[in-house]
């Protein structure tokens, strides 16, 4: 889960050309611009319950290294703030930890898992790194995009229910292709099971996470090929005095 995700860059699958660098028309992602929904005058504060959690997190570190808690606190803030880290969240965390706000901005912009723009209710991250790609992630991404009403990666559906992005390897390659919805992995996807998962989320349910193919985990889908015989129990094949 802690794998780093590619920024919500404007990459479209269709336009993938020969060059390896992504097209950037604007670098607005790494500077903050005041907007109506994201500016420092919007108040943010931890809820009571999150504040207790935050205090507990801070207590994990020696007092002179309070600022080490910046990543977990930003995550906590992001969760409380509907899944995205606004400038107010960053400023609040900076104040809470007594560090210059810029140090928090550095962290928040370094890690792509901090969304610095609002996202939909469900955050869909489709892995398109090599193993997933070989197992058909392009089709999965296309399915997700078209099923959600022809949106592009990096966009949110009109009803605000879904945001889709492309991400790098999530560490679930053995169950490729896969996608992450909110905090859960949905693996062994096909176009059909992808739609099913998305439909369930659209209705406000939460489908069972994990492989959607009937596998339990990452066991061989063709059944066992080794260690098929009965394992011998304790004492078997020993001289009688040890039996």
């Amino acid at each position: 889960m802690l794998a780093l995700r590619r920024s919500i860059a404007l990459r479209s699958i269709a336009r993938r050309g020969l060059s390896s660098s992504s097209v950037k028309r604007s670098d607005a992602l790494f500077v903050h611009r005041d907007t109506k929904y994201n500016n420092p005058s919007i108040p943010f504060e931890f809820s009571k319950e999150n504040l207790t959690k935050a205090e507990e997190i801070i207590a994990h570190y020696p007092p002179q290294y309070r600022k080490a808690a910046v990543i977990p606190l930003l995550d906590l803030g992001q969760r409380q703030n509907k899944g995205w880290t606004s400038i107010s969240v960053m400023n609040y965390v900076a104040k809470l930890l007594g560090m210059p706000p810029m140090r928090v901005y550095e962290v928040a912009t370094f890690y792509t898992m901090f969304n610095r723009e609002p996202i939909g209710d469900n955050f869909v991250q489709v892995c398109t790194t090599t193993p997933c790609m070989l197992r058909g992630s392009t089709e999965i991404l296309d399915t997700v995009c078209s099923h959600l009403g022809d949106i592009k990666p990096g966009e949110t559906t009109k009803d605000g229910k879904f945001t889709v992005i492309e991400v790098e390897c999530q560490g679930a390659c053995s169950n490729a292709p896969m996608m992450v919805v909110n905090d859960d992995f949905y693996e062994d996807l096909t176009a059909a099971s992808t739609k099913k998962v998305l439909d369930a989320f659209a209705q406000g349910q939460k489908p069972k996470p994990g492989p959607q193919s009937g596998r339990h985990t990452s066991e061989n889908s063709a059944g066992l090929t080794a260690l098929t015989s009965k394992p011998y129990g304790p004492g078997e094949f020993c001289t009688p005095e040890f039996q």
Partner: protein
Amino acid sequence: MAGSAGMLRAVSRGTNTGRLGKSVCSSSSRKAGRRQLSSTAPRQADITLTVDGKEVTVPQGSALIQACEAAGANIPRFCYHDRLAIAGNCRMCLVEVERSPKPVASCAMPAMPGSKVWTNTPLVHEAREGVMEFLLANHPLDCPICDQGGECDLQDQSMRYGSDRTRFHEITGKRAVENKDLGPLVKTSMNRCIQCTRCVRFANEVAGVEELGTTGRGNDLQIGMYVEKTMDSEMSGNIVDLCPVGALTSKPYAFHARPWELKNTESVDVMDAVGSNIRVDSRGVQVMRIQPRTNDDVNEEWISDKTRYAYDGLKFQRLTTPLLKQGDRFVPASWEEALQAVADGLAASGAKGDEIQAVAGHLADTETLVAMKDFVNRLGSDNLALDQAGGTAPPVHGVDVRSNYLFNSTIPGVEEADVILLVGTNPRHEAAVLNSRIRKSWLHTGLEVGLIGERADTAYGYDYLGDGAKALADFVAGKGAFAEKFKAAKKPMIIVGSALAEQADGAAAFNALAKFVEKNKETLVTDEWNGFSVLQRIASRPAAYEVGFVPSKKASTTKPKFVYLLNADEVDPKSIPRDAFVVYQGHHGDLGASLADVVLPAAAYTEKSTTWINTEGRSQLGRAAVPPPGASREDWKIIRAISEATGSPLPYDDVLALRDRMWELSPSLVRYDARERTSSPIALAGLRALEARTRGAAVSGRAFVRPIANFYMTDPISRASVTMAQCTRAFVKGEEYGFSGSREQPEAAFA
């Protein structure tokens, strides 16, 4: 991986990075750092290694790059800077080390005893060429329109390691980064940035601007503030020098000159009393820019923005010809007429003895002060006033013992102190370069700072003790936690602002301090250490005290009939009697000139070779870079000419004879670049005399006010400067720039 993780590492490297010998030995005696994650390991011994077959010995803990340098091998670099923390992110400094499978970044690698290093092998060349190719991949090819051209590290090093053709064929083109608005001083062209993070490290470690950092990562890493903000620091110009490429250039100097067209003149700055060493770059008769010169004893490698950018004030509002007042207009005159007018005016005013007053302003040089004093004395007067509040009376601290008004601990000595008390001063505005030393020490050692006086944002944290004489009395009585810390300190230091002597409670404050120093002389004034330091803020003031340019008691009560304003532009017009004959000598048509009957045009500091004494009592020679404009003349020559016209000629005809006269007054005035210590018994005697003189001084309880409200405008040159006016608008008044984020600044800054 660059970016924030890199920055964390950079900060934690701490003091290991200062200049070779100096930082290593000065940090050895310190307690563990508190504000940084780690502190320097104490110096152990010297180690020996072989570089290119040559044996070198360096202190343990030095970086490999320093060892290579000591062996005379030149290592190309971008991110490494010996006064900043190590980042190790440009990879240009690769060298080959025996038994290491890959080339090693020599700046981030400690020198190891017995290791064998090669800096000039095919492997090294290939590695550096590779790095260079990567750096150039995203660097625009715009040298012809780049201001850094001719002094660009990337340009120079690509001559050596660059390829003559490109393999970069990305259809999407090079990385494009938006320029940032850092204010009226620093121009940015962020496409050119190679992400060395020198500017970020400087801003965070030295200048105390913790808003500058890196956002994003990898190919998208960019330098900036994330939110829209200007770089509000009086040291910001230094990042222009630090930037190895043309990403950060000087806005006022933009597209004005190329470095090879400039004549360099080594000189001394006069915007404050630190005496920063500068290099004046001129073309023809114009000063094009001012750059710092390295002097570890004074300004290290930095200068303040006022020092660097006020030079455009030298072009505006200059006095270029003598002027005579006729009715309420000034009419131009020849020098002959003007000198005659002064002589006639002196005679007509009927001024006798102490009724002849000379007022020395901020920018009067030492030679001229001596000539002025000799001239006035010759006319039988002792009325030598200074251009400051209460300047017509003898100064509280007296001028008999140097240590009463000088910065005795020396400027590098600030870094040895473990507790500093600031009294009635904000060093950030009165001596910006010195302030960054305090910050350095505060960041890397356990230095504690206390402040009595007006609250100020000093770029480091401090204990606030109060605003006036009452707080000082409490401190002297040993009340409060800070007084306790001060007692326990091994090398305590008191920095007394020069404005304290001008305050209502100045005498009482000096009295209390003198008593306190006497009582704690075991720690404050010893044979090696003198922690009682007065921080002068005006370039000419230490010299004025040194030559005794102060009024006698009797003279200070006399009403003057003839007033000679020598560069005096801060005078209160009401203090000059209506019927007095006023002569102004100076280089700018500022306040002083408007009050005068005769105006004599003189040379500014870049136009004359004169002596300047800094706040430590260090005498330094400024040098003329350009000729004075129009009919203006060197200052001391004007006074010499007047003395002739008034019939009491001064006995020196050239500057050498004048310097002989200075030698007679005090040999230290002409012992250039040296600084003489006052021995501790004399320093203590001086303080006892001071205590006796100020005994029983009344206490009004009024707060100490800071003398400098606007850092960017403190003298006629900076007041005439357009750049300084822009700085005032941007930083002092906060106009023009949309600030995002809360403007409240933390009093204590965190690393």
